[in-house]
């Protein structure tokens, strides 16, 4: 064993160069810096020296110890990097293997569509309200200004439970219930199920969904109706769509209109979705008929309002390209998986 610190340093350097593993490095540490190590021995032996010699040797020995410690650290980190690299190589994955599938359900497409419509109208300040599916003739027809002998009241069009109780054919009765229970300003939408005696086929269902809307306040105009529904169409189908209002007839609105929207598929050039016309019929609307407001006890001179109603299935089918309304009520998971 060398007994001079410089020699010890040279020896340690040589040994560390040859060290291959963390164990070899540890052996070097113990040999030089351990309790019984060579450098420790030198420092312990200094008692027999003169103060000057002790100081000189002490300085040298400490410098060498520090240097060896640095060398060991450097060697150690190098060794661990190598070890890590080997480990990474061993642990390498084929990242193109599929991920572990977590089950993920979907909301029914009708629910999703109602959610989206509701979200848009809530952003415009409308609250969501509801009414019963089993309704009275009064709320479904009489109060909505429907002619007493209108064919839509027939057993061939409407499902009845008694002479006075029926399955609502539209969500419009919620207008009346809201007008009766609330004071203006009234600003609600009412999504829900409706029923008509249609035999199921690709485009008809005896049960379907509508979203009704009602705004009653001072100073509400038909221009506001246009603005509201145009905003809705743009948010629902894209900023590029334009709308067109055509005069139409509903007993509970006057003036009445149907809103067409430029085809969001072809941009109005004409395609299969819009049947070549460039326009798609989206909803019915109008200014609430004074007779309807009166049922709700509303002062028709002070307040005006508008109402609208849209078919949820139709909007969902248009937006998602669904070609058969029966898919909605068959509930085949292969269909439902496509919408989540």
């Amino acid at each position, binding site marked *: 064993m060398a007994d001079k610190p410089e020699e010890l340093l040279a020896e340690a350097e040589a040994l560390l160069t040859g060290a291959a593993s963390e164990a070899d490095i540890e052996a070097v540490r113990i040999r030089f810096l351990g309790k019984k190590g060579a450098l420790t021995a030198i420092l312990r032996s200094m008692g027999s020296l003169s103060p000057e010699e002790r100081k000189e040797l002490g300085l040298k020995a400490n410098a060498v110890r520090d240097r060896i410690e640095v060398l060991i650290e450097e060697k150690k980190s190098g060794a661990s990097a190598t070890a890590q690299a080997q480990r990474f190589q061993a642990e390498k994955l084929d990242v193109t293997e599929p991920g572990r599938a977590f089950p993920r359900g979907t*909301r029914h497409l009708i629910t999703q569509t109602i959610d989206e419509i509701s979200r848009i109208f809530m952003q415009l300040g409308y609250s969501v309200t509801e009414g019963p599916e089993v309704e009275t003739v009064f709320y479904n027809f009489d109060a909505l200004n429907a002619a007493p002998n209108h064919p839509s009241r027939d057993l061939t069009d409407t499902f009845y439970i008694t002479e006075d109780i029926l399955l609502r054919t539209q969500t419009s009765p919620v207008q009346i219930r809201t007008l009766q229970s609330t004071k203006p300003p009234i600003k609600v939408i009412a999504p829900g199920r409706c029923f008509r005696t249609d035999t199921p086929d690709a485009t008809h269902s005896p049960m379907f969904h509508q979203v009704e809307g009602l705004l009653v306040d001072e100073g509400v105009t038909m221009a506001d109706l*246009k603005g509201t529904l145009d905003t809705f169409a743009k948010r629902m189908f894209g900023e590029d769509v334009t709308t067109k209002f055509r005069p139409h007839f509903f007993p509970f609105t006057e003036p009445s209109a149907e809103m067409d929207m430029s085809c969001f598929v072809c941009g109005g050039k004409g395609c299969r979705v819009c049947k070549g016309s460039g326009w798609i019929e989206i909803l019915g609307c109008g200014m609430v008929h004074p007779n309807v407001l009166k049922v709700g006890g509303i002062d028709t001179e002070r307040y005006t309002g508008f109402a609208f109603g849209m078919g949820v299935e139709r909007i969902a089918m248009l937006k998602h390209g669904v070609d058969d309304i029966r898919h909605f009520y068959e509930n085949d998971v292969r269909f439902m998986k496509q919408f989540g």
Partner: protein
Amino acid sequence: MLVPVSWLKEYTQIPEDVKEFADKMILSGSNIETTTTFGEEISGVVIGKVLSVEPHEDSDHLVVCMVDVSGASEDGQPVQIVTGAPNVRTGALIPTALHGSTLPGGVKIKKGKLRGVVSNGMLCSAGELGFEDKVVPVLHKDGIWILPEELSDLPDIIGSDAVKALGLDETVIDFEITPNRPDCLSILGMAREAAAVFDKELTLPSFKAEGESSDASPTDYISVEIKKPALCRRYVARIAEDIVIKESPWWLQRRLMFSGMRPINSIVDITNYVMLELGHPIHAFDIRTIAQGKIIVDTAKDGEKFTTLDGSERTLTESMLLINDGEKGVAVAGVMGGLNSEIEADTRAILVEAANFSSDNIRLTSKRLGIRTEASSRYEKGVSAALSGDAAGRVCALISETGSGKVLAGAVDNYPGKTDPIAIDVRTARMNKLLGTSLTQEEMEGFLRRLGMTVVSEPGLLHVTPPHVRLDLKAEVDFSEEIGRIYGYDNLDVTLHKDNVEAGKSYRWTLRDVTRDVLTGLGIFEIQTYSFVSPKGVERIRLPQESEARRFVKLINPLGEENSVMRTLLLPNLLEALALNAKRSNAQAALFEVGNTFRTDGASDGDFSMTALPTESVHLSIGAYGGNWDFFTLKGVIEGLLSRFGISGVVFEPVEDSGSWHPGRCARVLIPTDFGNTPADPTDVPAEPDALAVGLFGEIHPDVGSAYDIDAPVYAAELDLDALIEASNLMRHYEPLDKYPAVTRDISLLASEDVTVGQVTSIVTSNGGRILESVKLFDVYRGKQIPDGMKSLSFNLVYRASDRTLTDEDVAKVHGKILSALSAGTGAQLREI
């Protein structure tokens, strides 16, 4: 409503460009279903005259014709054409498709040989020229189209282009007429609209016959008595003599055909023409058949038999109007004439009826008899009584014009329901307020006048009298649409109403959303199923006889038995949806529905005395088959949802007699009813919470599964979601995070199968004092080393104090108490792990 554009142009001026016309009409409220262009594809078809018809030597049904097409043939000579038409005859004018011509649908006609004989073209039927079978003139419906003889009088008709000569180039627009506008179910009505839209004059047709005869008076022939004035507001009768039943002139036939009606004979065609032109139904009787010329408008006798002109014998009721002559019925008023008074080939004098019948009455009669005619559907929608005189006059004018008879001057006009036109006050400010416009009074007045209204104006107010045919205009508000649509909805501003209303959704709506979020997050798909179901569903799910869910709200008129009652439970629909997926070989399906159920106290079996609306409550169904689903998966889902709802203290109780579920694998979910409401008075300690049963879940009974053809085990739940929402509490309070370490102890019990985990955890919890933090089952073992009828249950108990580190002594004291309570309470052998 089919409108041939050329006919419309007779009454007003419209843009030449059909698209421009159509677009403006649509924006003004006359929506268009379809626009059909006729004649465009036809080329090379000329008017030919048959010179000779010779038998074909090699065929019984073919004949060989020489057809004069004047200069239209290649060599200027008559062409030889072979045809199989049975009605071909010498002298007939026939549309002839020459070699190289094109017919609708792109059909090319070329010369060829038929059974060895050269044919240089084709003699055409009306169908081959693009007309639907139902409008082909009755005379030629089974053969080639023999054109009316009057055409021979036209100069240079032979060989001329058939499209031009016959006016086969036509655009027909099918307008969608809304139920409030019966006046638009006529060419003149649509012309009135067009005139208003394009601000042009409206020209009316002639309502007066040329050369009316005063030799006799209508009253010489007939008398009219209206016995039911409430059902017949007006009855106008005109008489025409010297009737000649013949083929109508081509211009009239042509208009009928393009409007979707089949030409029959001059008199029938004229009545149909006037109905199309004016929208007023007309009926014609053979006067010979009216006993003593008496027309009595009265209701039929109950059970009275009557044969309508379609040959069917009908049984009438006393609500139906039957025109009679004092001896017999002659027509079901407004619906269909009688076979006994039909116009025949030898009819010499006719009664022209233009009457106004109650729309409600006609609708009911038509419905009860199952007859819907052009006339009845117009009466149902509404016909102006003020129009009857002109309608009868128009028929007479056409009879005279077409040389079909001699019209007697004067009419028998019985008009008990006559009313004076009423002017309606329209405030201009109100109109602007509704429309969001600032139109001037003059502008509004102009719009209304364009619609044919009479307007008297004073400052801020218009007194408006609409044309009598506008039955829809009754109140001030109705004029807002008239002004708005003529001004143009597209010219209205686009604004948003300013208000300070805040949006929101109800708590119930929110919680249903939460439910959907939780369940879809767990991989379950939301379904929607019909609210009306088959009453057999409760049998299929083996619902106990005494169950409330058998009290159905029933439909009077269901589509079928399978949709005949309102659902009381969601389970049958859920199982059907699972069955559909199983049948379609979907390996697994996990579904849920949030849906309304309907219960009533009043109605049940065949009893429609229900007076109040049924109670609608929202249920939640969850169900699955395949995959890793089992009882405890489903229970975990339910526990997860209840936890999200903030409902604690839930108890699961075994149910053996549910019917629908496996007797050993079914649980009732019980939730506490105090909902954690803090009593107002702190000394008022709430009683032991009563439990509310909110539903059942478990493995579906194998017999029920079989009833739905599902082989795999099915796990399903039906819960009262409204009750869960009522009990829910989404508010969460912060609890300090644990500062001191926990002490855990695991224990195993060798217990009899009767001992439930619920019992064990309940004993542990009630003896755990304040330091027991949790107790969790982590293993259930049966098998080796465990005697039959026994099981080993292993639990992990966690102790912790919130204010200090627990010592071994602290834990030992409580743990010991728990162990002895367990031993005493369950008889189990205990083993500390």
